[in-house]
């Protein structure tokens, strides 16, 4: 039985993108895209682009769909030392943005690859950027042949408030309300844990099936006390989390004081607790 006209499946047309160098008429659209994507204030954008003495408008590339700027990338030229004695003209790749309605369509690739043509004739012999390694593996690496440089830069951090942890706890409580898996994991947990972590003010969290609560003032009567001298990054962002935790416990860089039963319970909800510190 044949379909009538109304039943015909119509394949959505693949959007057409024009990749080109920024022009002054694109300014408002571009600023809006950057502001929406990176939550940059207009003051910050003016500083970053208009006030930057090295800024070169011809090094902004944009993707346009139906007259609207839906993607962009730019390069900031600068002198860069690459060894004790060599300084080169380099470009820092920055602000790769794709409008949320146009993501997942491979638009980032032509924007990134435009580096080959856009930097030509600018006397720039190297490009660099701070990029998520996963993104490099998927997109940048195969396209451009980027190499990772081991940096000697370390970030020292001291948290003055527990604002982030408080926000994460709110999110965690929301997730527990709507997520069966979280609800099941927390079902039989009822305990309070005092955290004394390097770089953080002391705090206590009270975990129960109903809600997790943060306590900053009353730090007494905790079932467990977790003291950690490790960088949180090492402990929570390691690929082999279990191994890292065991190693940290054995070397006494993480110390847990309290009953074994509660310690095992804490380990059971380890993945829930670790999101507080990410």
């Amino acid at each position: 039985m044949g379909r009538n006209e109304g039943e015909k499946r119509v394949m959505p047309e693949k959007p057409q993108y024009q990749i080109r160098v920024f022009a002054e008429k694109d300014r408002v659209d571009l600023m809006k895209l950057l502001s929406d994507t990176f939550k940059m204030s207009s003051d910050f954008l003016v500083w970053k682009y208009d006030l930057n003495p090295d800024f070169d408008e011809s090094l902004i590339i944009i993707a346009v769909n139906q007259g609207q700027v839906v993607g962009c990338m730019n390069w900031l030229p600068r002198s860069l030392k690459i060894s004790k004695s060599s300084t080169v003209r380099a470009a820092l790749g920055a602000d790769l943005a794709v409008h949320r309605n146009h993501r997942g369509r491979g638009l980032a690739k032509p924007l990134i690859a435009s580096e080959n043509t856009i930097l030509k004739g600018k006397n720039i012999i190297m490009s660099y950027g701070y990029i998520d390694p996963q993104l490099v593996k998927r997109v940048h690496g195969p396209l451009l042949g980027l190499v990772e440089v081991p940096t000697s830069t370390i970030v020292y951090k001291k948290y003055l408030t527990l604002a982030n942890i408080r926000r994460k706890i709110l999110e965690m409580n929301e997730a527990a309300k709507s997520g069966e898996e979280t609800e099941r994991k927390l079902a039989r947990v009822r305990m309070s844990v005092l955290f004394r972590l390097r770089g953080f003010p002391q705090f206590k969290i009270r975990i129960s099936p109903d809600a997790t609560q943060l306590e900053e003032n009353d730090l007494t009567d905790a079932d467990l006390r977790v003291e950690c001298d490790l960088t949180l990054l090492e402990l929570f962002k390691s690929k082999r989390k279990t191994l890292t935790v065991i190693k940290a416990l054995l070397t006494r860089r993480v110390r847990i004081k309290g009953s074994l039963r509660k310690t095992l319970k804490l380990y059971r909800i380890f993945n829930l607790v670790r999101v507080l510190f990410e």
Partner: protein
Amino acid sequence: MNRQKPTEHRLRTYRRGDGEALISLFNRVYENFAGFVPRTLEYWSWCVLSHPDLSEEGIVVAINAGRVVGYAAIERSGNILEFCHDPDYDGKTLVLNLLNWCVNYAEYQGANSVGLNAPVQDNIIHQVCRESGFTEESFPSLFLRVLDLEVIFRKIEDQRTNVDKSLNEAILMNLKNFPSSCPQHLAILIRGGEITFSTEKLKQPTIKIDVDISTISSCIFGSKKTLYGALLKRRLKIRPLRKVLKAVKVLSWFQLENPPWYVPKADYG
């Protein structure tokens, strides 16, 4: 004889006209790091002084006998854009005082945290941060790409001191995966310690090297081990086989001495 380093200093906030002295100290302290972006008054005025999250009250300057011996510039949100202490000065007290000033300023501004980018090699900052209860986080991954191999090689060649006058070779590098806008060949002609480069395809090279963009970049920024690793993985192909060691020797001339990379927050907003 150990010279006692001076310790006395006073802290004050930034004053108009301090810029030159701060830039001069920054350039002196960090010029030997890779990743260093030389500070000019124009660049510094933009990346620090005009930063929308920084006010002049967020720049603290340490003075000893009228000389700037350290400074820190901190955003209202608690990120330290630049932090610098004079190596000829007793660092620990100075770093501690500058860091405490930054923590107090961030607290006063209601910031959630204080963050400082520092070189791993700076033991004074490391020690003070440990003692002041700072934790350590990793720096974002830094990736780079060579766009013009010939110019990079020329730059390195200009600084090269190890000249082997016995070597006479005509090397042709076939560059794979290089952008079409870049030359696909690089000829290196070595005669009696003199090296010349050309992007023309040599007709009768004595050594042929096939290499892709990421492998040659890794080799430039890596060690001799990287070179041998690339050879073993067949990502670097050298012909004829009997000239492999000579080719590796030449390529190793074009390896950077691999200094530590340090990037202050001010350089990437």
